[in-house]
């Protein structure tokens, strides 16, 4: 979807169409989720702090999120997808991979199917979307960004190599700032620069990511579109209005997080194998810690948070998170006493 949250807000309130807007938190510490194209002209970007955005674009209107609305429209869009295929892998509320190999509509032409989906979305929701059509997830994803908004980019099999060779490495999903810098240190900025390296060389230099890079620059991506991604973890977190000290993390605060976590755990209902905690410090550095544990234990989470805070005693805390992981380890010691987990 094209600037999804912002587009929804403009649909709900047409007056917003001709002003720069963003959706997110309009507090001192808020962060933006999306902005419309007008705002983007000022350099406003998603994940930017609201303060910085306001500096770039003083007349920017920041609209609070209406998550339930975005969710319900997202479900509407997913229903549209289902008319074409069952192989849908949602990446977020407004993005999904669709495998249409087995779809017989339009003579099986993926290009025509994609165009029809875009039309259908516009007809039913009044929102525009963009599509990438190609032979695998990687190329399709990159291509979907090419003719935004309300556009489509088709990369047929014989054009794949040519398409990839023109890409900068940062276009490859998974290559973030850190990886980009690492590659740059080796003189690699574009995908074509990666071609001379063997899979072994890349593997040694960049580990798993190196192997993946070797494949990507050859247009190879074996990942299947899978419609049942198992959650490996469930977690909740909270950012404070003002940075706090670890001593201020008290039972009341943890209870609130625990209640939110439990609401989500009930839905998952899977055997827990580990506990995780997270702290983000006042300098935006995050630290996490996890421990093997067969059930949720808030006291233990609290202890882990305290331990974690000791790693950086001079820094105050901006955010805390707690969560559980579901591992493959099915071995589990049973408890004598029923777990009063949040007691």
């Amino acid at each position, binding site marked *: 979807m094209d600037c999804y949250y912002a587009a929804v807000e403009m649909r709900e309130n047409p007056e917003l169409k001709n002003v720069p807007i963003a959706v997110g938190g309009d507090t001192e510490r808020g962060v933006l989720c999306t902005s419309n194209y007008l705002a983007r002209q000022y350099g406003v970007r998603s994940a930017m702090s609201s303060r910085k955005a306001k500096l770039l674009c003083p007349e920017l209107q920041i609209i609070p999120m209406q998550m339930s609305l975005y969710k319900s429209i997202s479900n509407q869009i997913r229903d549209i997808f289902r008319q074409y295929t069952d192989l849908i892998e949602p990446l977020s509320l407004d993005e999904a991979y669709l495998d249409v190999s087995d779809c017989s509509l339009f003579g099986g032409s993926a290009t025509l199917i994609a165009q029809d989906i875009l039309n259908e979305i516009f007809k039913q929701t009044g929102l525009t979307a963009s599509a990438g059509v190609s032979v695998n997830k990687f190329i399709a994803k990159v291509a979907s960004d090419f003719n935004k908004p309300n556009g489509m980019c088709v990369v047929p099999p014989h054009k794949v190599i040519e398409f990839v060779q023109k890409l900068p490495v940062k276009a490859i999903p998974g290559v973030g700032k850190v990886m980009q810098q690492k590659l740059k240190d080796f003189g690699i900025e574009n995908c074509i620069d990666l071609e001379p390296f063997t899979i072994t060389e890349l593997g040694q230099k960049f580990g798993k990511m190196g192997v993946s890079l070797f494949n990507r620059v050859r247009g190879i991506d074996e990942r299947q579109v899978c419609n049942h991604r198992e959650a490996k973890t469930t977690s909740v977190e909270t950012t404070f209005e003002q940075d706090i000290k670890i001593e201020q993390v008290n039972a009341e605060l943890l209870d609130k997080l625990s209640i939110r976590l439990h609401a989500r755990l009930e839905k998952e209902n899977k055997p827990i194998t580990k506990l995780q905690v997270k702290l983000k410090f006042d300098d935006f550095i995050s630290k996490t810690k996890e421990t*093997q544990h067969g059930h949720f*234990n808030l*006291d*233990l989470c609290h*202890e882990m948070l305290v331990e974690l805070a000791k790693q950086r005693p001079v820094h105050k805390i901006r955010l805390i998170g707690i969560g559980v992981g579901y591992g493959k380890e*099915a*071995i*589990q*010691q*049973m*408890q*004598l*006493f029923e777990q009063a987990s949040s007691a």
Partner: protein
Amino acid sequence: MHIIISKEALLRPLTLVSGAIERKHTLPILSNVLIETSLEEVKFTGTDMEVELVASAVPGNVIQAGAITVPAKKLFDICRSLPDNSEIEFKVDGHSAVVKSGKSKFSLSTLPASDYPNLEEWSSSEKIELTRHALRALIESTHFSMANQDVRYYLNGMSFELEPNLIRTVSTDGHRLALAQQPIVNGLTEQRQVIVPRKAVLEIIRLLEDDDAVIQLHIGSNHIRIEEQNFIFTTKLVDGRFPDYRRVLPQGGDKTIVADKSMLKEVFQRVSILSNEKFKGVRLNLSNGELLVSANNPEQEQAEESAIVDYTGDSLEIGFNVSYMIDVLNNIKTDTVKIMLADSNSSALIEGYDDGSSLYVVMPMKL
């Protein structure tokens, strides 16, 4: 203070009380031993504010009575390194304590006795008497199941339950539970239950001799005290509610296995070698007359051993942490053990055959 005392007379109480004294402490005086001298006896006190130990010695000669504190570990090391049967002269001289023996002379730093922390005043509300052997047996049969540094702090200790004719100890780490009991005469009029901290429990095992000498156990609201001929041991209690063991004693287990304890222990020990090092899980397959114990680890190695046991009934597969099983078998005193099971999700009840003095509950593992 000025006394003359033999090495042996000094070393015995010093060894006893130093158990309570930590070498490095934020409060310097807690590394010291308090020495108080009257004309008849020399009294030594060590404490870490949780536990207090007092032991006495009869001095050879008291030239001047008094009280002082000196570094416990240093005095102990000096005393121990002197030749046997040495006469030791201990004299406080200004801010120092001078220890002389033969041609050796040591000058130790001191801190005033008046600064030495006392466990807050307490009075024992009740008292029972039992033999050293009985108390040791109660603690030794159960201490291994205490939790260690659990967030449920009340599990990091041993529960003592006192009834009119009975004293019972219970310890549990939430996965397994151990219980022991001994009859007593002249017990408490009313039932009492207290939690003795882990460190104190381990200290009692270290201190207590195993014979039939009678000791006194005093129970206060926040402390307990053991008084016996060698020492007086006082500890604070853990303030908390110990879980009710009655709730977790398995009811209605219909599968009773009787087996030779040593044989079973050896089987577990052999099979445990190839169990998962972290989880220590072993699988038990029970069928008529046979218990098949098996284990495998992430390296895909496998161990399997069949044991002949006395059992008739339905088959059952159940998993356990093998260390818990070995711990229990190590502490059962009879040659034959009785294991009672219900199903693969219910705990096992393990007892010595025809021995009601202790019993053990172990929760299974999902393997």
